């Protein structure tokens, strides 16, 4: 058992535990000169989350809300500015790159764009085997068999191992990306919008594949998507992000049945409904766009677009508190608790 800063013990069923995760990027220059100071983009601003073994956490939000940065920060593909990420008992943020290297095989990522994320000059057989070679996981004689196994696992014909990415369709390339992620037998996988670049009928195939693999291999997943419908099919827990912060977090069934945050409600209300379903097509719940994380609004970040905004929302920032067991929400409509300034 390891003690985490807030005093709670880390039990073995927790694969990922992030506390106070902050990832800031240098933004544009404040002035016109190259030596003028830079603004800060707070891509991820104080995010805490837990993922238990074999569970999938869905992370939803609009573009620019920091969901991809959360995924990359957990894997230390970008180094967080502050906070702790516990993976298999170690705080990854404190490890040096060389110390991190052996852990990398236990945590992998599936990228969004199956066209950009595969090296067009490598055969897919090489792409899938590279991780195995780097971590010296398989004797050279068995390498081809292992690659063939992986290709079968993700539904590719092993005879294609010497083909190049351009010879495949988007869905098949995404299967290559999944095989590459699975090659090193990881325990934790980040799926960064793995289906959003695919056609509808192929999306269903990949969702089914991810579900089967997760159950078969007992994978722990962070599933990042802007599509609430996709998240619903794949996740046990869902976190809704807005401008670098978690607005609401609950089990999937609870969140979809009983959304508490006005932003979650607006996201759900924005999903198209058939005109004959009898549901009145409501006016857009939200106007405008997501504000810039360089210059976020004062108080609650959502206050500029919120349909139920109150005077207090412009002054203080609501804290993420438990509204009912396991259902956390950051909104003054639910709780008066505010973040310390």
């Amino acid at each position: 058992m390891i003690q985490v800063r807030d005093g709670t013990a880390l039990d073995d069923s927790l694969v990922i535990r992030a506390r106070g995760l902050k990832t800031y990027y240098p933004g544009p220059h404040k002035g016109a000169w190259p030596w003028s100071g830079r603004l800060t983009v707070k891509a991820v601003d104080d995010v805490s989350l837990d993922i238990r073994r074999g569970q999938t956490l869905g992370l939803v939000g609009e573009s620019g809300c920091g969901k991809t940065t959360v995924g990359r920060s957990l894997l230390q593909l970008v180094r967080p500015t502050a906070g702790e990420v516990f993976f298999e008992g170690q705080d990854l943020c404190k490890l040096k790159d060389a110390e991190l290297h052996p852990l990398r095989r236990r945590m992998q990522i599936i990228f969004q764009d199956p066209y950009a994320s595969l090296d067009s000059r490598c055969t897919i057989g090489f792409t899938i085997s590279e991780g195995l070679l780097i971590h010296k996981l398989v004797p050279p004689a068995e390498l081809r068999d292992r690659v063939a196994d992986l290709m079968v696992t993700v539904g590719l014909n092993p005879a294609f191992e010497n083909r190049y990415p351009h010879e495949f369709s988007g869905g098949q390339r995404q299967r290559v990306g999944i095989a590459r992620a699975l090659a090193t037998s990881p325990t934790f996988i980040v799926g960064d919008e793995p289906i959003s670049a695919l056609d509808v009928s192929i999306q269903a195939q990949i969702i089914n594949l991810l579900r089967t693999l997760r159950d078969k291999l007992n994978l722990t997943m962070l599933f990042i998507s802007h599509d609430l419908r996709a998240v619903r099919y794949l996740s046990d827990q869902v976190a809704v992000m807005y401008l670098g912060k978690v607005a609401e977090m609950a089990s999937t069934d609870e969140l979809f049945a009983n959304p508490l945050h006005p932003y979650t409600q607006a996201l759900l209300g924005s999903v198209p409904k058939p005109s004959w379903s009898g549901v009145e097509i409501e006016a857009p719940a939200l106007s405008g766009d997501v504000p810039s994380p360089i210059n976020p609004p004062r108080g609650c970040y959502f206050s500029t677009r919120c349909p139920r905004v109150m005077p207090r929302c412009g002054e203080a920032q609501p804290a993420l508190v438990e509204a009912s067991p396991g259902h956390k929400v950051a909104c003054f409509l639910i709780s008066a608790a505010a973040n310390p300034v």
Partner: protein
Amino acid sequence: MMELLPRRAPSGEECSARLLPVIDVRNLQVRFPTRDGVVTALDGLSMQVMPGEIVGLVGESGCGKSTAALSFMRLIPQPGRITAGEIVLDGQDILKLSDREMRALRGPSVAMIFQDALTALDPTMPVGKQIAEPLQLHKGLAAAAARARAIELFGQVGIPDPERRFGQYSHQFSGGMRQRVMIAVALSCGPRLLLADEPTTALDVTVQRQILRLIRQLRDTLNAGVVFITHDVGVVAELCTRVIVMYAGRAVEAGPTQAVFTHPTHPYTAGLLSSTLELTGDRSLPLYAIPGLPPELIDLPAGCAFAPRCPRADPECWNAAPILEPSGPQQSVACWRWKGD
């Protein structure tokens, strides 16, 4: 008798008064010669759009839906060519017009909203000028009047602070605002037919909701016909009065959206609908996924293009391609086996 009459060009008002279709497409075929063979991107498409009607063209990538829209603008890129059929736009057969005559129609008669507003807008020209330009060219407005009208259009499509925004460049706009600029450009000359090619695919759901509402409002105020191209059956169900489902360059099913989506007669439509992600229903079951991949459009098999993926295919389907035939009061389907066994 009809052949002897000259092809008249009734004005826009006549069209709507007599309820003539704004576009009447018959047996359209578009082919692209390539090194590997001839690609038939569109084969035998027939469709009509009445004023004030939103017709959805839905299908997966490569099914010919964007090619259809481009051919309605006569903007098929080289070396592609319209090899057969006719397109009667607002009373004129546009395939018989000279380039100069066609250019005069783009804007006042037909206008297009492209999917990717960032690449469709000119980055070196203030956005306001891009709206004022067609007004000066087509409507003969003086510069000052065009500017005033452009600012008015900005307001109509919901761009806040239009005076200031007029002089800004496209990179200074967010995705949703850029799409509004595109819509304002398309609307500037009050087109009879609006072609919307995946206008919301790159947008977040809350912004998608705003844009869909805008398109609905514009349809009502201008009484224009709209062709809405998308791969998202959810959007079609909410927005479109009629739908045409496309597969491998052909229309496979057409009819009123509610009829087609509640009683699909083509196995592809049925498959597409049941593989669609939903917000309700049992999420523990695996999704239905259409097996296999869409065919290459080079050397399509002689029979039905969907036969290799079709659960109902029998040997007859491989011999000849089915043509659209009535399957309901206003519904039609291109399938040999839609009646079942």
